[in-house]
């Protein structure tokens, strides 16, 4: 290394050491404040500017990263929402199912004398002029023609045709359906007949027997076609004419025949067929 260069660096080193020594001395004596101020006035604005620039870039990068994270979170949340929605629907469905089964179970427990088989409604009559439904139980499950079909709300109808795995149920509201019935309160008897579109009329109620709106109509068991005391419906209006031999009453069933999902088939009741005897 040339001598002058060696000397120059030595001088710089010496100057720096001297500066450091002076600064140490000034710090010890408490006179370093102005130096700090001087340095601060130069460095801090620059530091601030650089810091802002760096922070801006960093924030951009951070923003990008966060955006990606947010995007991922959004996707996750969307997935969670759809899963929760599905779960809610499933739970709602399970709740309805549970309520229905509870209703049926309650009915079953309240009527232990009946051997009831639950059947799912899998179809309805395709035309408007007859009233049938199709259930998923048949001969294989011990279902036989004529067996009563009920729901927890009352009588639905009876089995009219049996196949191995499914059966047709003639609804109470079909025009060809007629059921021997009686009014629970007065024990007045009559015949409940269905007629289109979905009405029920109790006919042949003896003229003198008391009938009034709100009376509950149940099966009388007469004729041996159906068990006694199954609820048919409630009287909504009475037609009484002094010159007629009988009274008539319109009945509203509690069963919604077109929204049935599960019905019960009473298996331990065999209708009596007088024609055979």
């Amino acid at each position, binding site marked *: 290394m040339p001598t002058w260069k060696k000397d120059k660096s030595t001088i710089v080193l010496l100057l720096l050491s001297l500066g450091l020594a002076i600064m140490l001395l000034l710090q010890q004596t408490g006179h370093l404040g102005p130096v700090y101020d001087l340095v601060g006035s130069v460095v801090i604005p620059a530091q601030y500017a650089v810091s802002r620039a760096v922070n801006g870039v960093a924030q951009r990068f951070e923003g990008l990263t966060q955006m990606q994270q947010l995007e991922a979170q959004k996707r996750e949340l969307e997935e969670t929402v759809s899963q929760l929605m599905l779960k809610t629907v499933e739970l709602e469905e399970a709740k309805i199912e549970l309520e229905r089964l509870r209703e049926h179970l309650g009915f079953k427990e309240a009527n232990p004398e009946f051997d009831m088989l639950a059947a799912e409604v899998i179809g309805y009559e395709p*035309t408007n002029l007859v009233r049938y439904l199709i259930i998923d139980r048949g001969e294989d499950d011990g279902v036989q023609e004529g067996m009563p079909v009920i729901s927890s709300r009352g009588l639905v109808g009876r089995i009219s045709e049996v196949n191995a795995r499914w059966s047709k149920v003639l609804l109470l509201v079909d025009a060809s359906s007629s059921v021997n019935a009686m009014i629970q309160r007065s024990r007045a008897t009559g015949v409940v007949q269905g007629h289109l579109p979905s009405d029920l009329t109790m006919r042949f109620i003896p003229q003198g027997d008391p009938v009034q709106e709100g009376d509950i109509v149940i099966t009388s068991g007469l004729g041996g076609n159906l068990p006694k005391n199954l609820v048919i419906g409630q009287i909504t209006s009475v037609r009484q004419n002094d010159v007629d031999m009988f009274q008539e009453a319109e009945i509203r069933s509690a069963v919604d025949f077109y929204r049935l999902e599960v019905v019960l088939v009473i298996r331990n009741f065999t209708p009596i067929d007088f024609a055979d005897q």
Partner: protein
Amino acid sequence: MVILVILQVVLLPHFSLHGIKPNLVLLVVVVWSLMYGAREGSIWALMCGILLDLLSGAPLGAASLALLVAGLLAGLRLWRTIHAQWFLPALVAAASVAHDLVLMLLLQIGGHPLIWWDDLLRVVLPGALLSGGLAVLAYPLVRRMPSRPEAEEEASSAAPRQPVLW
């Protein structure tokens, strides 16, 4: 065809009003007859009808026969010449009434109790209106109705002859 019948038996009852529902099978049979002629329509009517008969509580064959009559009526050349596709709902409603009247007749023969006038007003007409309403959905289908050979023949025979220049 099977899907159509299943829809009629399973889905449509959920849209019924007091037990009265539109007849989707009838609508398809009418549209088919209108588009491809009475013969094609009859095939659909019979095939769907047999399936419906198996699921219906009505006497066996009643649904087939009623659909067949509706299909044959809808396949008349007359509808083609007067562009009946433009008033399809009315045509479907009329076919529905015809279908139900045939069905009622067969039910009556089978011993099913009916109160004709009452059932006509309270069941047949509302059912026809519902089926006619459903027919609006079939407009896009019939709008692009392909030409039918016999209809063309008829149209050409009905067209006025051009005067011959001597």
